[in-house]
């Protein structure tokens, strides 16, 4: 199979939300000695972008978005180790989670998957994440952006704690800090010193693009 055939295989696997097929297609890339970086750029990215657009247009819903992102991750697990470290695949790494005491995950999952669909590497910390863990993981992974979601009026205070943590460690300038979730607003983001408020997925992606190269 030629390069284009394998790229199509990769894209089709993502578009059909099939992790197994995506892994096999990625193994085909290796077997056929195709440039893995080009395979990602020509096969995976256009497909996941198309899935992201369909989700934005509400032609598909959250499960399809998440399954497509899972398929993409299966292929990346095979391809990324083959790419030299000096060649950049993703726009930036984003560390994201739902704040301490809050177990709501849908909003966070949407943003995670939309970020993946837009070419970011995502480190999903899950829910009920301690403020210090956001910072530690961002350091460990070389992230440029930290995203914190909160859905309860009683839990958004933890977003401020993350800013305090970053400031007290003298690392506030190192990471862009973005907030989101039901009771958050632009005013709240300004009040606590966050760099932006992801009112919805498109806004979150715009902000991530803005800070992809750093704060």
């Amino acid at each position, binding site marked *: 199979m030629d390069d284009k055939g394998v790229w199509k295989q990769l894209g089709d696997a993502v578009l059909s939300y099939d992790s197994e097929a995506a892994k096999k297609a990625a193994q085909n890339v290796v077997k056929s000695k195709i440039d893995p970086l080009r395979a990602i750029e020509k096969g995976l990215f256009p497909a996941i972008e198309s899935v992201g657009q369909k989700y934005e247009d509400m032609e598909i819903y959250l*499960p399809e978005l*998440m399954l497509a992102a899972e398929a993409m991750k299966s292929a990346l697990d095979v391809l990324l180790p083959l790419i030299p470290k000096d060649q950049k695949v993703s726009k930036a790494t984003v560390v994201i989670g739902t704040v301490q*005491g809050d*177990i709501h995950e849908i909003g966070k999952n949407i943003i995670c998957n939309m970020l993946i669909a837009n070419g970011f590497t995502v480190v999903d910390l899950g829910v009920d994440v301690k403020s210090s863990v956001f910072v530690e993981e961002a350091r460990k992974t070389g992230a440029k952006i930290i995203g914190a979601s909160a859905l309860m*009026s*009683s839990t*958004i*205070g933890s977003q401020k704690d993350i800013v305090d943590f970053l400031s007290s460690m003298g690392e506030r300038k190192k990471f862009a800090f973005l907030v989101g979730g039901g*009771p958050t607003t632009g005013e709240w983001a300004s009040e606590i010193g966050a760099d932006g408020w992801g009112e919805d997925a498109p806004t979150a992606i715009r902000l991530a693009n803005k800070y992809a190269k750093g704060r």
Partner: protein
Amino acid sequence: MVQLLDVMQRALEGAPMSESDYQLRSFAAKVQEKVREYKIKYDPASPIPNDRSLAKDLFEAAIELVVDVGAYCTDTSRVISYTEGEVKEAIRNAPSRLRMGEGRNQKDFVSRKVGDKTPPWCLLGAGGGACSSDTSFLTLVEGYAEIPETDAITTPALTRVGGMRIRPASPLEVLGAMRNAVLAREACNRVGREGIPIMNSLSTAESDIAFAAALHPKYGMRRSDGYMICCMDPMKVDFARLNKVAVALSLGGPIGMCFGPLLGGYAGGPEGTALSNVAHHMMGLLTYQASWMLPFPLHLRYVSSSSREMLWVVSSTGQAISGNSDILSVNLNYTSAGPCTPMCLYETSATVTAAVTSGLSIESLGVASNRYEDRTTPVEPRMSAEVGHVVAGMKLPDANELAKKLLAKYESKIKTPPLGKPLQECWDADKRRPTTEYSRVVKSFKKEMAGLGVKLRPEEG
């Protein structure tokens, strides 16, 4: 009869599964399978459908869904399964009547049917919306308690204690939840309705420890109040929630399970969201040992329940539940627009009409997506209740026509709704009434509604 220990046993011994597999490969996949199998179809021309077979199919499909996917315990990563017999038994045994409140304010909360002339149970207030201070809290709850149609109160949630922003599961949250209970009772007392039940006990208590602490009788909560526990979407539970169940059961108060399937979320589009909404009623009877249900389906994008698809979800859920069971169900609605705007009042009128004519009761409401502190007043729940009382008994085709006329007034603005004004700018706390500006909005709204055949109480002043 499935009891709490049975739930715990299954949570400890049920089939292990990852959370992601449960959500994506079990729940989401089965929802779509049932939607296809039962040919459940959303019709934009009928935001309030009149289709008995749809109601029956949704109900049957929901029973099958609960049997197929059960509930999921996130603490043990196991599926809590139920047999068809257990689901049907729980539905049969669900109470159709609960005696709520005390003294002059004691009243029976009863199940309703499609087209029922019985007024909806009016659980009025903020739906847990955030409020910045004790003063705002008291102003709001006094206002809610003074609404003639108020059968029960849904309080706002405090966000600060002693000037500090509440942190989850901390002493601040525990103290905030206790204060929530004390202030709510005090506010009702101040306007002479001390016996009125508080049915979202307690919105400030997200953690199990805060919930348990604030339900101590010394803070004024009673077994004739409603003990509300929120389910994690989709069909999930954890030990903290089951701890709340254990506490509420021990106190003897009726548990209300609230759940908010998102249109666009794990259940997919309107059809799957309606199916998920109906199935959560059944799952709640079993897993959360609930006596009454509080669905609040929301549109993922608009974070409200007033769009055309959402009216269909609310109505078809109501018809499925009320047409096939006596489960007590109270629909909580959210508007996109804020106080002091006509849009907010039309939005709540549309969702309340969908709920009430389809056999549900109402909790009204979350204003401006419940996103902003103090962006709610006693006016919006009062209008919702007035509309709810007038449309009770309305036939579904008439309700559908009314809903379409209401949608025409706001549908084009739902993506960029006006946020209106905060409490302090459109409610006069001393006079216990809306400001002159908001009164004008209300009068104009009532005139428009009368033109649509919905004659509301003449506005004072």
